[in-house]
């Protein structure tokens, strides 16, 4: 918690993680500010523009304008202040959903769909866009500081909203630079109102009002001069006013045009050097903080007067913004913070690291390891980061913010660091395995193995040795076959602490090893234990996986009723929809097989297609799951006389065998299936089921506004490769255009029908 101010959980939403309410409202208005009446009138008089882009450099008063607009507009405002954490698309979309929910309730299944990071493009983002387009309460949805978001997936999801603004509502971007959300095409359709720096520049009377609000009284000619010199740039005028108030500038204000090469000098010479040493030190040192609180500032500066100082600074300086009504949290205007940070760096890296280190320790001791992590990273304290990631990684993974966890792990992406921080290597390997990156999963496993003996720091689960964590990981990646998988799982269970979160995984993997060795009774026994442990900890992705495995086992012994009951449970579990995680594959395969046994071929075909989208994630990194799921789906395809689907799945199994040849009894299953495929007399060509993993990755992106070039950038492919894959997709789906391919994909179940949300037809502006 930051300085005693709680990060509030909004009870009106089902957000999967704690939301910072300060992000869902604009900063509090300062005691005095210049009214932008003319601009507000302009915004009020053009309600038919569903999109408004306020694009201007820092310090032009974008947020101030929007705040004033909110006071005058009858419609409710849904506000999100974006920051770097919204590079994680799950975080970004959950905040958007929470903002919309503050005006009109958003269904729980929309929030659930946002928790599955691998399905965000296919399911989560389109569902949110549909939810927004379906709202009936006209609202203004504001995305402030959009320039701070650089994550492509987040920006693509925001771009989806642009075509889905419901009638009577407005979507507003406030940003320093034109956001890459497809504004060009919206501009050509006349749906966009743009306000730029020229519009936002203060006119002479507004400049005069700003100077008065800063207690600067000048002669008329002087006001005109300073206004002309700054060209109406609000921040420049305000900086000049502060300088004049503190004794007058020695450097001419002519340089204040927002040009970085001059503003830094002006800031240091005219402002910082004129403040009291205490105030200057306070402002500079606390610039390391994303959000300020009195106790946190006291901690990093080792003083006790921060509360009084922050209060005073807020009253006298509009660059210090209060975030809450309780006066417990503040932040600096981004331009101001940039300037302060620049000054702090001049004091040397050691000082910057020391301040960040204190901030990390304080936020950790306050019970907020997740917030401490960026500070520990800036402090370059890898030992502290290791401990923090151990605490925060699993909760962050389970809340769907894989991108956030991936970013943390990237700081360690160096073999030397991985070998000395084995817990991080373990988490990273699992993350790569479940995200369909087998080579990376293997590399991080090897680093973990090399470093295990030398790691002596304490573990968050209180296990005596990190070797037990590595044993679970090695069992999961199963490089040496089911017998070694069993040994690794048993060794892990012998040494993991009683309450360790890894115990449920060890039991799951012990069950899988038993299954691959033909010991169904042992498999069932271990999976029962895994399920109990998973349910008691609320670990839903694992719960679905274990139930799926048990259901398949039940079907194999002919107990259809038991399988039906288990799979009914899976479909009612809270959380992301089935088909969102790689771990859902076995449950989908079981559902397909059950449908077949119940004679419902149509449902079996649907489940088969639903499972297809998980194939890119089910790689040789997790061979026991990847092969098992494909075998089951191939059997279903065979029963449906879908030879192409069956052969495609067998082909992928052969590719997995290249890396993982030791597959126990599954090898017999594979041989039997190959014989059966060869003897198929009837051809039932369902080429849709033969989409390759590469084509399956591209398919959801065909449903967006992205060009083929842009799709290539997202997936690190050349345009030629994307075009080749896209052409193959059209052929297999029987389509002759991109939109037709998307329609066919929705019809066949390859894409969720939420992805095909028709753009809102404008009744008010063509």
């Amino acid at each position: 918690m930051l300085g005693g101010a709680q990060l509030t959980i909004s009870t009106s939403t089902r957000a999967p993680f704690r939301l910072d309410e300060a992000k869902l409202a604009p900063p509090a208005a300062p005691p005095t500010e210049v009214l932008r009446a003319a601009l507000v009138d302009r915004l009020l008089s053009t309600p038919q523009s569903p999109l408004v882009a306020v694009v201007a450099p820092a310090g032009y008063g974008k947020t101030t304008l929007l705040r004033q607009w909110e006071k005058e507009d009858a419609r409710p405002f849904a506000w999100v202040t974006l920051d770097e954490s919204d590079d994680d698309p799950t975080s970004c979309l959950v905040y958007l959903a929470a903002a919309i929910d503050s005006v009109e309730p958003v269904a729980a299944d929309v929030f659930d769909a946002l928790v599955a990071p691998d399905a965000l493009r296919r399911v989560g983002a389109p569902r949110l866009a549909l939810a927004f387009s379906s709202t009936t309460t006209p609202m203004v949805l504001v995305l402030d500081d959009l320039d701070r978001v650089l994550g492509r997936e987040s920006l693509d999801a925001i771009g989806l909203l642009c075509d889905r603004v419901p009638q009577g509502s407005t979507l507003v971007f406030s940003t320093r630079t034109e956001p890459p959300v497809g504004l060009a095409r919206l501009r050509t359709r006349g749906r966009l109102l743009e306000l730029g720096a020229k519009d936002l520049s203060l006119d002479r009377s507004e400049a005069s009002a700003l100077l008065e609000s800063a207690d600067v009284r000048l002669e008329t000619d002087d006001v005109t001069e300073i206004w002309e010199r700054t060209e109406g740039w609000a921040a420049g005028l305000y900086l000049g006013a502060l300088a004049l108030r503190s004794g007058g500038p020695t450097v001419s204000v002519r340089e204040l045009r927002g040009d970085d090469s001059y503003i830094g000098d002006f800031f240091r010479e005219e402002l910082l050097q004129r403040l009291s040493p205490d105030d200057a030190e306070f402002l500079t040192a606390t610039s390391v903080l994303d959000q300020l609180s009195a106790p946190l500032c006291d901690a990093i500066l080792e003083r006790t007067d921060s509360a009084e100082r922050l209060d005073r600074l807020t009253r006298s300086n509009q660059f210090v913004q209060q975030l809450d009504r309780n006066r417990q949290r503040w932040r600096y205007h981004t331009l101001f913070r940039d300037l302060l940070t620049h000054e702090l760096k001049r004091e040397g890296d050691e000082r910057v690291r020391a301040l960040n280190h204190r901030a990390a320790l304080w936020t950790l001791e306050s019970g907020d390891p997740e917030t401490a992590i960026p500070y520990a990273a800036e402090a370059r304290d890898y030992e502290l980061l290791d401990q923090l990631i151990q605490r925060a990684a699993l909760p962050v993974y389970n809340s769907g913010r894989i991108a956030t966890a991936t970013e943390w792990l990237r700081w360690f992406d160096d073999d030397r660091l991985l070998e000395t921080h084995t817990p991080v290597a373990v988490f990273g390997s699992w993350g790569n395995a479940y995200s369909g990156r087998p080579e990376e999963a293997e590399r991080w496993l090897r680093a973990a193995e090399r470093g295990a003996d030398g790691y002596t720091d304490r573990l968050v689960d209180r296990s005596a040795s990190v070797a037990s964590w590595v044993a679970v990981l090695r069992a999961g990646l199963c490089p040496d076959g089911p017998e070694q998988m069993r040994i690794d799982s048993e060794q892990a269970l012998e040494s993991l602490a009683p309450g360790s979160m890894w115990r449920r995984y060890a039991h799951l993997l012990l069950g899988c090893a038993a299954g691959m060795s033909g010991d169904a009774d042992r498999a069932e026994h271990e999976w029962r234990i895994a399920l109990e442990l998973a349910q008691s900890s609320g670990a839903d992705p694992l719960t679905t996986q274990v139930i799926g495995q048990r259901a398949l086992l039940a079907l194999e012994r002919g107990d259809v009723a038991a399988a039906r009951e288990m799979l009914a449970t899976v479909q009612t579990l809270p959380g992301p929809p089935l088909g969102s995680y790689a771990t859902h594959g076995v449950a989908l395969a079981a559902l397909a097989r059950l449908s077949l046994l119940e004679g419902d071929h149509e449902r079996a075909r649907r489940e088969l297609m639903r499972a297809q989208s998980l194939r890119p994630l089910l790689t040789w990194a997790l061979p026991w799951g990847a092969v098992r799921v494909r075998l089951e789906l191939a059997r279903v395809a065979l029963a449906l006389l879908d030879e192409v689907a069956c052969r495609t799945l067998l082909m992928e199994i052969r590719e997995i065998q290249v890396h993982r040849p030791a597959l126990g009894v599954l090898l017999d299953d594979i041989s039997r299936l190959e014989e059966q495929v060869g003897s198929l007399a009837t051809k039932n060509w369902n080429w849709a089921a033969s989409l390759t993993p590469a084509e399956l990755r591209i398919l959801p992106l065909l449903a967006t506004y992205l060009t083929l070039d842009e799709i290539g950038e997202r997936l690190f492919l050349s345009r030629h490769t994307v075009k080749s894959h896209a052409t193959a997709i059209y052929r297999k789906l029987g389509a002759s255009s991109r939109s037709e391919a998307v329609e066919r994909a929705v019809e066949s179940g390859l894409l969720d029908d939420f992805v095909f949300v028709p753009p809102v037809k404008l009744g008010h502006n063509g």
Partner: protein
Amino acid sequence: MTLRRIAVRDETIVEWMQSDHDGTSAVAKLDYRMCGLVQIAALIAAGGSVPSYRRAVELARLGGATPDEIVAVLAAVAPTIGVDRSVREAPKLGLALGYDVDEALDN
């Protein structure tokens, strides 16, 4: 007998061959792998489009052909059709396999 009927352009056989869009009918008596590889060889010789290569590659792979075996067709046909033609067709075959040769050469 099938060979003679093809040789005289028997209408029934022609109709059958033309309707056999994937070339895997009983008349051909080849499995998917062999059909796919043979079609790839024909495309190299005639100069095919990427979508056509793609189709043939899919057939071959469904039949168990590995990417290495598919690429080896370029070498296998070169003595018959000329190295130059194999060289010219290699990038298209690469794209059909999901690999952009031109881009890789730029890196």
